[in-house]
């Protein structure tokens, strides 16, 4: 197997190239971008990110914890205060709310780590500092015999250059 990396300047070109490659059945594709461009990301991963699922779970856990903790604790040892009910919902809503946000936020970031594959300390040799400048990269893994075709295809989409990297 071989890996080709094509260097692009514009997200639109990347997106087009990726679409065509996928159309031709090359599915083992990764792109590197200096900034987020939905068109590029969607071209590679059409499905929406699963981060939202974790956010939901976090939020729900938060609200449940918030109410459960406060209500249980106030009834675990009932102490009279200012003639108020032992467990009063309105103030506890504030606690529940804060915990919703807290848990939701933490799990969201956890989601970023899981689905963004972070942290990862073995960096793909195909990655280069130019992708953290302003160039885009499309990395395709393929059989040797397809190299020529992909090379041509990438150039046809205005790749400024195409390199062969060790896989």
């Amino acid at each position, binding site marked *: 197997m071989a890996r080709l990396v094509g260097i692009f300047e514009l997200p639109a070109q990347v997106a087009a190239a990726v679409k065509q490659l996928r159309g031709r059945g090359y599915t083992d594709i990764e792109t590197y971008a200096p900034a987020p461009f939905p068109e590029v990301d969607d071209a590679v991963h059409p499905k929406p990110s699963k981060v939202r699922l974790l956010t939901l779970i976090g939020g729900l856990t938060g609200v449940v914890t918030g109410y459960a903790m406060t209500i249980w604790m106030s009834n675990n040892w009932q102490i009279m205060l200012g*003639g108020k009910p032992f467990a009063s919902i309105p103030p506890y809503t504030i606690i529940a709310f804060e915990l919703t946000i807290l848990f939701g936020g933490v799990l969201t970031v956890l989601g970023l780590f899981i689905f963004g594959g972070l942290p990862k300390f073995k960096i793909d040799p195909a990655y280069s500092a130019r992708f953290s400048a302003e160039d885009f990269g499309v990395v395709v893994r393929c059989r040797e015999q397809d190299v020529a075709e992909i090379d041509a295809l990438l150039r046809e989409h205005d790749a400024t250059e195409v390199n062969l990297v060790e896989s």
Partner: protein
Amino acid sequence: MPEIDRRNFLKLVGVSAGAAAASGCSDPVQKLIPYVVQPEVITPGIAVIYASTCQECPAGCGLHVRTREGRPIKLEGNPDHPVNRGALCARGQASIGRTYLPDRYPGPLKRQADGGWAPISWEDAYALVAKKIAAVGDRTHVLGGSVGPTLSGLIDQWVAAVGAGGRTVYEPFDYTALKEASRSVFGIASRPRFDLSQADFVMDFGSDFLESWTSPVEHGRQFAAARRVDQEAGGARLVYVGPRLTLTAGNSDEWLPAKPGTEGVLALGIARAALDAARDSGAEVPDADQLRGILSGFGENAVSTITEVPAATIRRLGKAMLAARQPVALPPGVALTSRRATATTAAVLILNAVVGAIGKSVFVVPDGSATDQVASYREVAQLVQRMKAGSVSLLLIHDTNPVYSMPGDSGFAEALEKVDFVISTASGPDETSERADLILPDHTPMESWGDHAPRPGVRSLIQPTIRPLHDSRAFGDTLIESARAMGDATAAQLPSGSFRTILEQAWSDTDFRAALAAGGVFGKEAASGAVTLAPGISSLSFTEPRFEGDGSFVLLPVPSPLLSDGRGANLPWLQETPDPVMKVTWQSWAEISHTAAEALGAEYGDVLAVRTSVGVVELPVVPRGGIRDDVIAIAIGQGHDVGFYASRVEDGKLGGTRGVNVISILPALTDESGGRAWLTARAAVRATGAHRRVAKTQEFDNKRGRQLGEAVSLAALAAGDEAAEASNAAAAYSEEQAGAHADEHGGAHGDGQGGSHEIRKPYDPTHDSTDESPYRWGMTIDLDRCNGCSACIVACSIENNVPTVGEELVLLDRQMQWLRIERYIGDGFQELVTGRNAPTDHEVLGNTDVRHSPMLCQQCGAAPCEPVCPVFATYHNPEGLNGMIYNRCIGTRYCSNNCPYKVRRYNWFDYAIENVHEPMHLLLNPDVTVRGQGVMEKCTFCIQRIEGGRQIAKDGNRPIADGEVTPACAQTCPTQAITFGNLKDDASAAVKQADAGGARAYHALHMLNTRPSITYLAKVRRGTEGTEG
């Protein structure tokens, strides 16, 4: 050492709790050492109570000394004692501290050549005294305060035995004028006794009987009884004559700011008016003709011009007093004893005679009380002369501090220099003992034996309640021992044995042990025989007094209700308790009227120089409305430069002068009969341009129509509850809208009866699922009975280990007292003062609408402080108390911000360690936690007493009975203004009193619906005839 089981351990914790807590975290490990042999009377953890007698003033109130493990920790009145009936004044409460003062003399001391002190053994000291006396013989003299009969007798025997020159009994506040006036009016040389309890019309010519005159506790109780609003005509009326709005004046119904010194003339004017009224109505007045002769020159117009009191008023008062069922007129007190004091007092006695008070509320009987031995000032002055002349070589001074309390130009200090050898028996340093050559320290009253005879038929005992803390000896024993040191011949002339045995012999006519237990023998009051006017009466001349020196002001030296003649100055609680009228602590201040202040260009806190013919003092001014323009008033008692608390720390060491001593600028003058005169000086006053911050704890006396310190006029009250409430409520709200000045009809717009009941419930039961408690502790405070004497403040502080913080911290409003007395003038919607530290007062000359409102934790049912505490440090206990868990408090101070009554106090520093100086910590109440740095604290109705009561009730397997538990404040109140009890028990005194209050009942800041457990009963504004509000 026996092994300690849990129960014993817990008991023993109590033993050293005080010490452990006082020394706190900074100290090494505290050891708990059990009694190996336990004294039979002492059970650790249980208080032992001894009966004794208060020695702070000649009134001689009975004491119950509460001791724990051999330490007196609290004084309470002896309920059986006829003088005080269980109550005590602030001074009595604080006097327990004398024993524990940090600066007491460790033992006998001898002056060295270099002026320093060196310890000396008692034997050597006695030998030295003997030698000296032998040398000087009859040039020996004894100068001392008034003491109990037994000790007094012993002193006289001693004087005779050692052949001393004589003895002088010196009291700064003598009552010579009263004695002499009685002599010249009735021919009986003794102090008449005044009983207000049955009176219905009290005419006070400046005696200030509620604060400083003769027996304040007794008179306070009697007056409160006479004034009960549920009596016919709504209780007794009080008319006050005097240049200044004193505490007594503030409790009066009518205030006549007559020209100072003319009280006697006014009395005669009123007597004359009464006499005329009697003639018109045909009423019978004994000796009418003789009286008419005396009073001929005192027509109402003449009197009016002299006294500056309207003629109509004089006529009205004369009528009123004659019409009264049992009127009484009281003579001038110390502040108004002018150089015509005897005549003035005689005039008052004549008025009493005219209106028929003699034998009803004024009793003239030959009086055996100690004060009869008190020398007139003239005699004291003669002693000073002899000292100056060098004819006194050895002076033995006991129980008095003349260097401080003798007038500035009496030259006592210089005279003392002339005396070769001065012996002082002071137990702690004072201005006089510091000038002595030999100190033979006496026990403090808590350590001594003794007795006291306040008046015929009343003998009470003093017994020691703690082993002497220092190497001191009873004065009596010192006398006996020194006599023995002079040889058997001398000793033989004195009784054998110790002073205690002498005391027992003196009481041999009674069952001594029974008397000890009871606190004394309280027989019937001696009845007063019929008295007739004496011929000497005609020799009296009732002219105006002359004043010494020039200057636009008359200098009015006011005996402080707290510091008295200065003897209270070394007791920190008395220093820190705000003056009941001016609310100033730890300092001296001068009172002048706003008008006078403007004329001088002096504002609040500016330092005035007050110059008399004798000297000058500089002190900050507190302008007020309640004083005549031509008078400057300065309280007696401050100005000490000796004493741990009495003096100030100046550049790092004690010995600075705290405040000023007004006595030092008073001329040494007497009245006609030789009694000491105080109202004698004119003062020239100027502003020095300097400014000093005044440690005043209340700077605003305008309650702005808020539900605090309410009052209701008798008229509105008589018109029926609804009417009263309606009118009050209407008045209040309309005023709130208009922001207008309140009219006379502000008042109890609490929620009246029904509301009070609803609110007196512990807390809303629907919200309460844990409370099966039969108790809801609460209070009823009757503002009509509270006269503002401030005894409760000191009682609370000592009971609850509340530290004093000192002048500097009071200036930052950091005082710690859990209980304060708020003083409001009228309902008030006066303009707001917008400056910094600019107190306002709305006193008006002649206006007596002063409300004293004790403010302590209200133990609210819906307490705002509770829900805001993040850690449950303050919470609601099942008995409705607002509990405070000191150890849980992290000090967010949110609770205090949310407390509308502002009754919470915070430990900004580690007061328990820094402000409790050894051996003061021995006074700490082991039942009460000592609070550390950074925690909030507050009143909990003396919960330690409630728990104590619960234990006893538990042993009896019964609920706590009503009246079984009494918080310190309610216990000591002379007028029983505070009633504590269980609000769930409709038969409890507190509930009954609240119900009886009717429309007067209200809750502080009721609009906030905090459901307080304290029900206040509004003060009643009675007014006198013609001045009904």
